[in-house]
């Protein structure tokens, strides 16, 4: 499998089975729209705006609608407002309304949505990975944190945690960086978005993470800061298959 690698969205992008230039264009469009570090990005402009109602681009509207669905599905654990006020944000078509002083941060879904979007460009078999969040078409073997590997047959795989950037995941229940016992949580989802949301949710739920994964039928692997590995029952079951 011929793998092309380049930098985008502040991480390494790896592509196989798709035109790297077309994939790079997808990531550039998403970064141009959602980067919090670019003052001229659409998200930065929306967050600066004092208007209660603003018109947004179709891409912005779509991503925000997904982010609000994710917040509802995770009971606000993955929250685009990072402050528990996601219910106050409304998107109707391309019209966004929110109370004053609510800033949006779509980092919880943007990277994995961009990966899923770029994966649509794969012809035949291949994968797209952004900083280790992966969507596959056809089976792809993936190396795991702290050793080992897994074959992703369908959907996506994502890892969330504090290993590379420290405690950057905010727990919306406290407004503080999460004190999760996990260092890294890897989850397998029907898409890269599903995997990413599951990994983040299981991480933020702390000791309840494995039970949440089992309850939702999601294979997951959780690693503590002292490298102890806990596998959800579906992960164990998948590895037991030969």
């Amino acid at each position, binding site marked *: 499998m011929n793998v092309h690698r380049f930098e985008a969205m502040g991480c390494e992008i790896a592509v196989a089975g798709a035109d790297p230039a077309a994939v790079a264009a997808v990531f550039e469009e998403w970064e141009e729209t959602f980067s919090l570090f670019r003052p001229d990005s659409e998200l930065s402009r929306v967050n600066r705006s004092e208007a209660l109602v603003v018109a947004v681009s179709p891409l912005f509207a779509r991503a925000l609608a997904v982010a609000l669905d994710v917040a509802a599905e995770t009971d606000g654990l993955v929250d685009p407002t990072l402050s528990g006020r996601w219910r106050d944000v409304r998107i109707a078509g391309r019209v966004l309304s929110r109370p004053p002083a609510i800033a949006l941060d779509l980092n919880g879904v943007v990277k994995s949505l961009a990966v899923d979007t770029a994966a649509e460009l794969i012809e035949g078999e291949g994968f797209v990975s952004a900083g280790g969040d992966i969507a596959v078409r056809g089976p792809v073997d993936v190396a795991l944190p702290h050793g080992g590997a897994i*074959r992703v047959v369908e959907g996506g795989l994502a890892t969330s945690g504090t290993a590379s950037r420290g405690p950057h995941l905010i727990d919306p229940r406290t407004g503080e960086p999460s004190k999760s016992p996990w260092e890294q949580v890897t989850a397998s989802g029907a898409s890269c978005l599903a995997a990413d949301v599951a990994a983040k949710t299981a991480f933020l739920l702390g000791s309840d993470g494995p039970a949440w994964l089992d309850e939702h039928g999601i294979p997951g692997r959780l690693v503590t800061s002292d490298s102890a590995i806990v596998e959800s029952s579906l992960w164990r079951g998948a590895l037991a298959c030969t």
Partner: protein
Amino acid sequence: MEMGNDSRIERARSRARGAKAAIAAGTLLVFGAAFVGAKGHAPGHHKGKAKALGAPKSFERAVKRSIAEGGVIQPPVAPPPVATSTS
């Protein structure tokens, strides 16, 4: 002479009654038409069963299922070309 005056006054009153009746009928007709039109077309007066303005339920179900649905994994069979990690 006096009878002639009475007759003219009576005729004038009769015309006035006719005009009032015509104006009342016209007003009722215009009000009725406006009422029916408003009931049929104004946003606050739906004609049939209310429908949700959001995405179809099937789409919402698909999104929710996708968000909370696990992928398919197996034991590895080859050296991995890519790794998953936090970024």
